[in-house]
C-alpha cells in the first residue's frame, strides 16, 4: 500500500527538489506557513528557486531563511513589506519580483490546480498589473486576462491531517494553503496533528488527500508578527 507519511520534513522533500524549480509556499504573513518544510528546503541546498507566496517571511524566519542563503531567484507575491534582506536583494538587483494583486494570486493558484489556463478579472484593469495583458469587455465592463499558476512543488501547512493526506486547517491559518495544495505537481503537507485514516470527519475535510503526495507531522513555533492585545472590552485594532 502506498505510504504518504514521512518521519520528518527533510525526508519528505527527498527527490522533489532541483535547482531552478518553482515552489508554492502557503501562509499569510507568518500565519499558517510550512515552517519545517521551509527549513528543510533551505537545508536541501536547492538553488535558483522561484517562490510563489503571498509574502516573503521576515528576517530570520519563514521564507526569510531562504533569502538569507540566497536560494531564491524570484518571488511572486502580493506584499513583501516586513523583510529588510528582501529589500536589500531586490534593490541591488539580485532578486526578481513579480507583484500580483492578492486575489489574483489566490485565483491563479486555484485555476492552476483546477486545470484552468486563464481567467478574466476586473482586478487591476487600468493599472501597471494589466500592462501587456489581453483585455476583454463583458457586459460593458473591461476585464484583464490572468493565467493559472502551477508549481513544481507546493509546501503547505495544516492543523490536522490523516495518513491518507486529508487536511483540515485552523482559523486564519488556512489562507493560501488549500489552493496551493492543488497547484503543485507534487505537494508536501506538514501538520500539527497526524491521525489514523478514518479519524477525521469526512464532511469537515478542507483539502482531500488526492492533492497531497506526502505528509509529515511537525512541531511549530508559530511566531506572531503583530502581537496586539487589549485590557478593555471591545477594543478594535488601532
Amino acid at each position, binding site marked *: 500500500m502506498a505510504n504518504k507519511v514521512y518521519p520528518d520534513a527533510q525526508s519528505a522533500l527527498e527527490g522533489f527538489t532541483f535547482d531552478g524549480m518553482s515552489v508554492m509556499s502557503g501562509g*499569510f*504573513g*507568518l*500565519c*499558517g506557513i510550512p515552517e519545517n518544510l521551509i527549513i528543510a528546503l533551505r537545508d536541501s541546498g536547492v538553488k535558483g528557486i522561484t517562490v510563489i507566496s*503571498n509574502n516573503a517571511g521576515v528576517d530570520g524566519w519563514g521564507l526569510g531563511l531562504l533569502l538569507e542563503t540566497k536560494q531564491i531567484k524570484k518571488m511572486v*507575491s*502580493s*506584499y*513583501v*513589506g*516586513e523583510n529588510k534582506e528582501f*529589500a536589500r536583494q*531586490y*534593490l541591488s538587483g539580485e532578486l526578481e519580483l513579480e*507583484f500580483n*494583486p*492578492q*486575489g*489574483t494570486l*489566490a*485565483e491563479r493558484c*486555484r485555476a492552476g490546480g483546477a486545470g484552468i489556463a486563464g481567467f478574466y*478579472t*476586473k*482586478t*487591476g*484593469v*487600468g*493599472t*501597471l*498589473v494589466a500592462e501587456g495583458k489581453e483585455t476583454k469587455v463583458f457586459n460593458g465592463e473591461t476585464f484583464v486576462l490572468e493565467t493559472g499558476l502551477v508549481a513544481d512543488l507546493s509546501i503547505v501547512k495544516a*492543523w490536522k491531517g490523516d495518513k491518507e493526506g486529508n487536511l483540515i*486547517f*485552523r*482559523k*486564519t*491559518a*488556512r*489562507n*493560501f*494553503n*488549500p*489552493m496551493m495544495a492543488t497547484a503543485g505537481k507534487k505537494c508536501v503537507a506538514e501538520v500539527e496533528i497526524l491521525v489514523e485514516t478514518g479519524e477525521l470527519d469526512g464532511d469537515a475535510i*478542507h483539502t482531500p488527500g488526492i492533492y497531497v503526495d506526502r505528509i509529515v507531522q511537525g512541531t511549530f513555533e*508559530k*511566531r*506572531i*508578527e*503583530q*502581537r*496586539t*492585545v*487589549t*485590557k478593555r472590552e*471591545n*477594543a*478594535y*485594532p*488601532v
Partner: protein
Amino acid sequence: MPWSRDQLAQRAAKELRDGFYVNLGIGIPTLVANYIPDGMEVTLQSENGMLGMGPFPHDEDVDADLINAGKQTITALKKTSYFSSSDSFAMIRGGHIDLSILGAMEVNDRGDLANWMVPGKMVKGMGGAMDLVAGVKRVVVVMEHTSKDGASKLLKKCTLPVTGINVVDLVITDLGVFEIDKHGSQPMKLIELAGGVTLDEITAKTEATFVNALR
C-alpha cells in the same frame, strides 16, 4: 479645525448601515470599528480569510492562527466564519462586500485611486487593495487633504501609479467630504466641510475641480 484621525474615523462610520459587510483598510480606516453605532450590526471582513472579525484579544487569548490582514492578533465572534484566500477574494471581487474604507496617497475627481506605490521607493506591494477597489460595492477613501509639503492629494489626474480607475465613491479628508460620480459624468461634489474650514480654504487646497454642493 481640520478633523483629527479619530474624527475622520467617526465621519467615515456614518457611511455604515445596519447589516453591512465591511472591509476596513490599515491605518485610520481600522479606527472606524470603534465608532460603529450602538444597535447597528456590521460584520467586518478580513481578506486573509475571516468574516466576523472581533476586537483585540486579552493577553491570555492570543492565538497565532487568528490574525487580521494587518497581521495583528484578533478574536472571533459567535458569527465568525473562516475560509481560504480564493474564497475571500471571490467574496470581494464578486461584489458581496457592501463597503470598503481605505487610505490613499492620491484620488482624482473621476474616482481614480493611487495608494500602493511611489516610483523610486521600495515598493511593498498592493496586497488586496486592487481587488477591493475593483470588487466592493462602495469604496470610501479616508485621507489627509494635502501631503506633508502641502500639495493637494485630490487631483485632476493621479501622478502615481493607480490602484484602480473609476473606483472611489466618497472621499473624506481632514477638511471635508467629496462625492464622486465614478461611472457617470457629474462633477465631483463638495458636500461637507470640517468644522471651522471655509470654502475658500478648501478650494485653495484642492487641485481637482469640484462643485459646491454643501448642504
